[in-house]
């Protein structure tokens, strides 16, 4: 492990960033020293990504000070941040596939003489950088698309170094890497810190933080709750700091459980998809809400989409009301009464430039037509009735979906399945980007549906939401089902503990 110096590189104090309706950062403090690996911890929505965006110049803070190497600084744009030496490696690598390693590294600041790009200089400097990163075998002329995920990450890192970065932000850099590639990455990080470069490291994997981290800062609800903790702080302490988030929404109480134990509606047996998840089995009864908890990338959405037929399973089977579904066939799932509210509402769920009515009947066109001619009055009538039931405002089915707020757009997606009496409803992150008021209404709606006998499967990255809504919780980690337990037997901390450490908890 490298020896951090005492030189303070960066101090952020009292950083506030608000978006309409959300206070994403509410007074964050962070101090990074030269040559250290500073880890950021926090649940989804704690403000980590917003903080990174502020630090990389993508967002401007509303309040607070940034002091960079002893001088107050404003970061107006990503380019400005890069220029003073702050580079970011995003989760989604931002490389241009068709260009070579060298071209990617020097994209936007190609070495040039009189306007002619100096390819030899770029190649030589690339070779130099790759040697410094311990990977001289990567040729500067190789097309980036042909490199492995780890190789691409190295290119991304070389790009940061080419800008003479003093601070590199790494957002879940190991998410796409195999075990030996992780070792490589850590060796590189160690070399960098030995040279005095600081790394802000974001990961949900506590064992990684233990291995390479020097200090830890924990965020919760947009605030720094603890900073400069040693990396070997016990897991229990860290989890306690992260959990107990203020939940602004009160979950509606369910006086009576509506679970119909004798009526198994959805059964999933040994479902697998190579590279995504393995041997997932569970069942859902009529009137039951089953929550899938886990980190982003644990395979929850993939499981949901495979159950729905939007992805084709490699092995295993899905049964709805005793009938086996054809793998990879959305049509057969929809016909059997399965509905999906997908994770990406705008890109996967909605026709934004079309009317609400068109969106609501999209999955039921045959039911809303005679001999292929659409029955527009029935369509408008049913849509309006559904909008009123969902308390959508304005309840005008002819309005374009685009003109509605996020919460109302989500309701439009759910309405699609309400008009066709679905038996199984798969909800993927139903409250993402939805304001507090609409959230409460969606929660109420989910309970109502369960009370009406619908089997609901809920994926959410917000642990309190999964706990508050579900009857039963399945915990996933790295494509496997870890635990299955009644929601009342679990706590936020016990779930966090499982998803982050992977330790089996006896309940």
């Amino acid at each position, binding site marked *: 492990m490298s020896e951090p110096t005492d030189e303070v590189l960066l101090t952020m104090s009292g950083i506030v960033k608000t*978006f*309409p*309706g959300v206070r994403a950062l509410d007074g964050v403090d962070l101090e990074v020293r030269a040559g250290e690996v500073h880890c950021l911890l926090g649940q989804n929505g704690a403000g980590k990504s917003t903080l990174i965006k502020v630090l990389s110049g993508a967002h401007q803070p509303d309040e607070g000070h940034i002091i960079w190497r002893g001088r107050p600084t404003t970061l107006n744009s990503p380019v400005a941040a890069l220029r003073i030496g702050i580079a970011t490696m995003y989760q989604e690598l931002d490389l241009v596939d068709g260009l070579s390693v060298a071209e990617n590294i020097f994209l936007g600041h190609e070495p040039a003489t009189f306007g002619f790009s100096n390819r030899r200089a770029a190649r030589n400097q690339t070779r130099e950088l790759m040697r410094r990163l311990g990977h001289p075998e990567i040729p500067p002329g190789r097309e980036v698309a042909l490199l492995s995920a780890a190789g691409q990450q190295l290119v991304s890192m070389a790009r940061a170094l080419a800008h003479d970065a003093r601070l590199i932000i790494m957002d879940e850099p190991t998410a796409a890497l195999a075990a030996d590639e992780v070792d490589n990455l850590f060796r590189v990080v160690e070399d960098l810190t030995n040279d005095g470069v600081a790394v802000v490291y974001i990961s949900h994997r506590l064992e990684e933080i233990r291995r390479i981290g020097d200090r830890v800062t924990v965020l919760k609800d947009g605030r720094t709750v603890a900073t400069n903790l040693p990396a070997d702080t016990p897991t229990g302490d860290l989890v306690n700091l992260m959990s107990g988030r203020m939940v602004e929404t009160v979950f509606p109480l369910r006086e009576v459980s509506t679970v119909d134990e004798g009526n198994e509606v959805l059964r999933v047996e040994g479902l697998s998809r190579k590279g995504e998840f393995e041997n997932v089995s569970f069942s859902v009864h009529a009137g039951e809400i089953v929550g899938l908890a886990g980190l982003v990338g644990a395979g929850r959405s993939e499981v949901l989409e495979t159950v*729905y037929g*939007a992805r084709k399973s490699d092995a295993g089977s899905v049964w709805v009301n005793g009938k086996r579904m054809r793998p990879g066939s*959305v*049509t057969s*799932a*929809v*016909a059997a009464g399965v509905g*999906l509210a*997908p994770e990406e509402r705008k*890109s*996967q*769920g*909605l*026709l*934004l*430039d*079309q*009317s609400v009515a*068109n969106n609501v009947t*999209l*999955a039921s*066109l*045959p039911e*809303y*037509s005679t001999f*292929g*001619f*659409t029955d*527009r009055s029935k369509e408008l009538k049913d849509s309006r009735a559904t909008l009123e039931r969902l308390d959508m*405002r*304005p*309840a*005008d089915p*002819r*309005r*374009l979906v685009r*003109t*509605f*707020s*996020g919460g109302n757009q989500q309701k439009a997606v759910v309405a*699609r399945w309400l008009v066709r009496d679905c038996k199984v409803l798969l909800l993927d992150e139903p409250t993402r980007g939805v*304001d507090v*008021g609409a959230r409460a209404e969606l929660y109420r709606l989910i309970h109502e549906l369960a009370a009406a006998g619908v089997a609901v499967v809920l994926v959410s990255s917000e642990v309190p939401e999964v706990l508050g809504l579900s009857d039963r919780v399945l915990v996933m980690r790295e494509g496997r089902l870890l635990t299955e337990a009644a929601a009342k037997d679990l706590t936020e901390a016990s779930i966090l503990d499982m998803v982050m450490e992977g330790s089996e908890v006896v309940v």
Partner: protein
Amino acid sequence: MSDVTEKSTLDERPAVQTAPAKSTSGLRMDIRLTILIGVLVALCVVGYALNPAFLGETNISIMLRLAAAIGVVSVGMTFVIISGGIDLSVGSMVALSSVWMTTLATQEYGPWVMVLCALLVGLGAGLINGVLIAYGKVVPFIATLAMYASARGLAERLSERQTQVVREQGFSDFFRGDLIGIPVLIWMLAVVFAVGWVLLNRTTFGRRTFAIGGNAEAARLAGINVKLHTAMVYGLAGLLCGVAAIMVVARTTSGASTNGMFYELDAIAAVVIGGTLLSGGRGTLIGTLIGVLIFTVVNSIFTQNNLETDIQNIAKGVIIVGAVLLQTLTSRRAKT
């Protein structure tokens, strides 16, 4: 970011707000349509001022008959573009259909077999496009570019680059004739537009076409068979090229591999002028019809006044750019 702002302003509205009768897009569409119709009327006025015979019955009849074939092709193109695709092969499919239906062998079987032949050839070529695009995952631009080249090639081979005269008198008598005082060709255009309009706006087929163009992934996740539907849309475009081939053969009393030259460009231009988004999901057939008519009127003004065709092409280019600028301006205003 802008979405969030939009949301907050919406939330401030009173809860009991009465819904506007028309959606915003309906209004915007109407503004654009009004402007298009205004342009068409203005062009007619110019034509009349230059030569009063412009609005005479003869010239109008000539104009509409010239517009008929490209109009029918543009209907198919509108479906394709609304579904999010493009078809560069329409002109070549018209050529192939026109040649196939006028070969000596086909003509032997009489007028109705000629008609059936044109329709089947067009449908077949369109379905090949559709299957390649939907199931072969070839991008529409490339698949139809290949058809653009090979269909005309096949037409040249079949006809040995000769113009094949229609000998079948029954065919000419019917398709060159009138029905209740109006030329059959104009009837055909009207019927294709009417049927196309109903298909697009009143059936599940049309609804699915809009859905696929608007968001193919959302359509797929709603259980729509996107591949099958895509193939059918290209099949429809091909079928309409067959119809157009019948019309061209009737007008020129011959089939030739040079028929339908540049139809793809004229059709795309008409559709775009009509306000259909090239990215799919939004568009109208009325707009396409007006787009076709604007081009026809411009052509007629130029030929009537013996103006150079090069200036005519410049005028066409200006119209296309003007229409698209208008489109971006009106949609930008509607957003703010």
